[in-house]
């Protein structure tokens, strides 16, 4: 097993990640890549307390994480790679090895337009996701495993309808 899900989710660790994906995929560790969280003991403790005891959380800054991903891919247990924003995932994809990117939740904020119930993007973020796809990663939105994975281009065309 290896990193079984590469997810962008601005809520980072929460119910959908721990229970929704974590249980069916039998996830044993989460690699949480976020510069602000990695720099704060208080934030780390907050996220650590949110996961069940059989699940481990490893915190890294973006720069730290990129070279470690290959190591994580050799782990015997399944794990989730988790970033809070598109820019961080973009960096990791640039480094190589990330072949699929799951958009799990990017929520409402000023300047963002709605694409799905759980996806809101600025024009710049939209371009960044297309860049990620152009690097060869399969990008799709899917909040929980039971939902259909919506390919990036299909998702981006949704906004023109609404």
């Amino acid at each position, binding site marked *: 097993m290896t990193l079984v899900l590469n997810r962008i989710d*601005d809520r980072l660790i929460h*119910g959908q*990640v721990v229970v929704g994906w974590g249980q069916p995929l039998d996830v044993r560790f989460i690699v949480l890549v976020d510069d602000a969280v990695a720099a704060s003991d208080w934030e780390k403790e907050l996220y650590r307390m*949110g996961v069940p005891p059989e699940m481990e959380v490893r915190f890294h800054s973006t720069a730290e994480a990129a070279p470690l991903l290959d190591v994580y891919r050799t782990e015997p247990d399944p794990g989730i790679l988790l970033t809070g924003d598109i820019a961080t995932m973009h960096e990791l994809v640039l480094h190589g090895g990330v072949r699929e990117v799951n958009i799990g939740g990017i929520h409402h904020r000023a300047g963002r337009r709605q694409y799905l119930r*759980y996806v809101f993007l600025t024009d710049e973020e939209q371009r960044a996701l297309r860049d990620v796809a152009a690097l060869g990663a399969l990008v799709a939105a899917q909040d929980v495993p039971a939902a259909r994975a919506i390919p990036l281009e299909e998702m981006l065309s949704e906004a023109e309808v609404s």
Partner: protein
Amino acid sequence: MSEISEVRALVAGHADFAAGLISAVEAVTGRGEMLEPIQVKGLCGEDIQHLLQERLRATGALVIFTDLQAGSCTMAARRLLREEPHVVLVSGTNLPMLLDFVMSSATNTHDAARTAVDRARSAIAAYGGPA
């Protein structure tokens, strides 16, 4: 009508968790107004935190009840507790807990919440099925 209708706690969770539980509290006790449901659909963690803070201040509520420990409402509330140290956060909320809370005779809302947690824990049981 008595004067027990003021909001004492916020309830926040996934989907219609809050509204559903509060409707059950209302059906059983008629005291649903003591709890305010927080609708967080489509909000990022930061916005949830701001919404909780705004509603705490507007209502004077001293307790936040949430569903999952790792849920985004719980995470947002835990962040908020740094700025609002007088507020008690309870996760793993269930119906027996909220019933006990709204029926509590404790004059101290924090005590009412803590007692409700203990009672709720003892209200969980599994019956029947093969051994």
